[in-house]
């Protein structure tokens, strides 16, 4: 196992530190540098801010593993993973811009407050020049706002809300993960194909921003295919027993149930829906079906057999057979003994993309890095041909439509890929009404 030494403020490690220490005490302000936390002394510090406590701790743990792997690869360790398949050849395995990559970790607790505190400590104490991670949109948007103010780059982790690159987009923030609109755009044609165009859908939606944007997207996309929406019921985030929301569905005249839930909510609502035997019923002369628009394999596992045959979308899945995915699964699986999740994949890509952008820009300056990322087209990272759109810093790539596997061969074999929806089909205009209202602003180097 390759070890990276504990992180110090890079600032103090080099010769500048020795000089300052010997000389008389000097005052200087943070404005002395060209940008916040400019690395010096041969190392650069990245901050990985993931949930380590609370309900999303396992996803956070998987993200952390992927970050460790990415750092190892960047520093030239291991088998190089997706660095070998990445279309850009700027990365050489000698760190970033010759600086050895070090990292610090923190706990977001899946609370925007705690996440910001943790990110701040990385920026202020540890001198992190980039923050990445997160497992919910609320946290991602909060930390993105902070990074904009502090003048560091934010490479979002798992965040699916339209708002992250919609009305809350920021010049210093970049999202590789897909979003609610893309989920809907990819899912709707498959659903139409499978279940027909004359369907009546009942939505159960988590009562917070992510749930609303997701529901809005799905409703629009399915109605465009001829479906009608019978009802949309908002469920409190704290709900653990969804029986009272699921029970009325059967008599509402709907023949499809859409669960706009994530994580624990998704597991519990899906379990309740299956328990009520909804999928065994015939309504309007059709088989009753359930749809879970955003799947996470780690979470789907918690629902056990209930996911079988249920459609949803995902950003990436380990069973993909392109070279990039295969290389990533191999190096992750060899190191940890199990395949990576989509959260692990997206943060690994984000770390590589950041490093690559630094190399191409020749600086860690957020403005330079941002410029290098904007409009950057690449492939070989497991999602086909991808582009970081300059207008909103959203990555556009193929989206996977998946369904719960009927006959899993192992405990990781929960989902099967039904269709890889091509990028063109999920793209939208930057001023699409679901994403309107925000402005990117100007990049902030902090100094």
């Amino acid at each position: 196992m390759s070890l990276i030494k504990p992180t110090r403020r890079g600032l103090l490690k080099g010769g500048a530190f020795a000089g300052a220490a010997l000389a008389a005490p000097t005052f200087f302000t943070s404005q002395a540098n060209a940008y916040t936390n400019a690395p010096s002394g041969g190392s650069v510090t990245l901050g990985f801010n993931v949930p380590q406590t609370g309900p999303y701790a396992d996803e956070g743990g998987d993200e952390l593993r992927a970050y460790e792997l990415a750092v190892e690869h960047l520093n030239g360790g291991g088998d190089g993973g997706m660095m070998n398949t990445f279309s850009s050849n700027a990365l050489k395995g000698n760190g970033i811009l010759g600086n050895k990559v070090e990292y610090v970790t923190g706990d977001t607790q899946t609370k925007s407050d705690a996440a910001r505190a943790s990110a701040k400590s990385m920026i202020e104490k540890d001198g992190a020049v980039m923050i990445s991670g997160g497992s919910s949109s609320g946290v991602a948007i909060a930390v993105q706002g902070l990074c904009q103010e502090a003048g560091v780059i934010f490479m979002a982790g798992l965040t699916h809300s339209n708002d992250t690159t919609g009305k809350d987009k920021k010049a210093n923030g970049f999202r590789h993960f897909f979003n609610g609109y893309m989920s809907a755009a990819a899912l709707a044609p498959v659903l139409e194909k499978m279940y027909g165009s004359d369907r009546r859908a009942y939505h159960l939606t988590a009562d917070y921003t992510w749930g609303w944007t997701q529901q809005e997207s799905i409703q629009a996309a399915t109605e465009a295919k001829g479906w009608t929406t019978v009802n949309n019921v908002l469920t409190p985030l704290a709900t653990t027993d969804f029986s009272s929301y699921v029970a009325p569905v059967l008599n509402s005249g709907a023949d499809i149930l859409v669960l706009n839930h994530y994580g624990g909510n998704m597991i519990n609502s899906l379990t309740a829906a299956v328990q009520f035997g909804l999928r065994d019923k015939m309504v309007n002369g059709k088989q009753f079906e359930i749809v879970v628009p955003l799947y996470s394999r780690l979470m789907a596992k918690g629902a056990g057999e209930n996911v079988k045959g249920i459609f949803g979308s995902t950003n990436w899945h380990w069973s993909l057979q392109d070279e990039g995915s295969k290389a990533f699964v191999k190096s992750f699986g060899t190191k940890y003994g199990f395949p990576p999740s989509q959260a692990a994949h997206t943060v690994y890509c984000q770390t590589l993309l950041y490093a690559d952008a630094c190399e191409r820009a020749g600086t860690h300056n957020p403005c330079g890095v941002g410029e290098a990322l904007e409009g950057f087209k690449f492939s070989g990272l497991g999602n086909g041909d991808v582009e970081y759109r300059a207008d909103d810093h959203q990555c556009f790539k193929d989206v996977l439509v998946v369904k719960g596997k009927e006959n899993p061969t192992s405990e990781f074999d929960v989902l099967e890929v039904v269709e890889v929806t091509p990028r063109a089909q999920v793209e939208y205009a930057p001023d699409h009404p679901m994403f309107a209202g925000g402005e990117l602003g100007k990049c902030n180097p902090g100094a």
Partner: protein
Amino acid sequence: MLGLNKKDSKFLIIVILLTLSTPFVMQPFSEASALSQFNGGYPDLMQRVAIFGIFAIGFNILFGLTGYLSFGHAAFLGVGSYSAVWMFKLLSMNIIPGIVLAVIMSGIFALLIGYVSLRRSGIYFSILTLAFAQMSYNLAYSVLTPITNGETGLQVRPSDVRLLDGANAPDYPNLFGWTMSTSYKWEVWGHLFTFNVGFYVCAFIAICAFYLSLRIFRSPFGLMLRAVKSNQNRMSYTGLNPRPYTLAAFVISGMYAGLAGGLLASMDPLAGAERMQWTVGGEVVVMTILGGAGTLLGPVLGAGAIKYLENIFSKINENILHGWFDFLPEGMENFFVWLFARFTGDGWHLTLGLLFMMVVIFLPGGLMEGADRIRKRFGRKSDDNSPSNPAE
């Protein structure tokens, strides 16, 4: 000094000196040493310690003096934060209007909630406050999103109105142009000390808050509050109406919470609904009891301890542990890394839980009792001749 007797004046001066020297106190280790991981002298943590110190000082006025255990003070923290951010959005990025409104709004909320909740006592009161706080949290997270921006939290945007700010006003919270995030760093002998404007604003307000609480503790009003805790029946039959006293204490502590909320938003202009969750209200209970309920300085120590643990322990990952135990043979290194990893990083909650249990079991009076015991042990020689206190 300032209407305090000699002993209290000395106490206040010590507290002021301690607060002002926080950048040194919390940064004891050299940057190059392996222990620098335990340095906490960076702006955000120092600000948080001061702010949660204010929160706990205020909570102590209610809980420490009257014995009424409120689980709902998080609601006032949240109200304070939302009010402050709305002021930043509507009026000015100067923190003064934000903080003033935060204190006023939380005072109004505390008056309403307190008026209803204080009709009951004991655990019935606790559950009433808890219910109010959870209702506020649930609504702020969902239905009230137009006001609170729900899950994401209320943020300032470049497009905000900000009536009072001119074209050249800073875009970040400031005090008459002095931005809260401005820091001055001082490197000396391998140490790095950070002097942050925001921290000193918090520290100044915290000292004022502490001074006010000191005055309340020493005042007839404080005496009446202690009487409420001791024997409400006797109080009634002594011609005193306990209800307005407790309500006043509730409102004062609610305003302290609002002040803390306003300051949180001033240091970092975002107000999240999580601030209203009962766990945050529980956190301040823990801080107060951990430090020593009813003591003046205890709650501040408790706040410091919890925030330090939260921010420092959660950042110690296995990688860092491997660095520490590098000198050991492979097998032992892995064992120690495994062992320590249970309590740090994603295991920091376990450390927190064990800490509560230890303190409550062995130090019922909180950290202040621990400090007292240590002082007694080391101070025995000099105190041997002095007559012992009959009350003990």
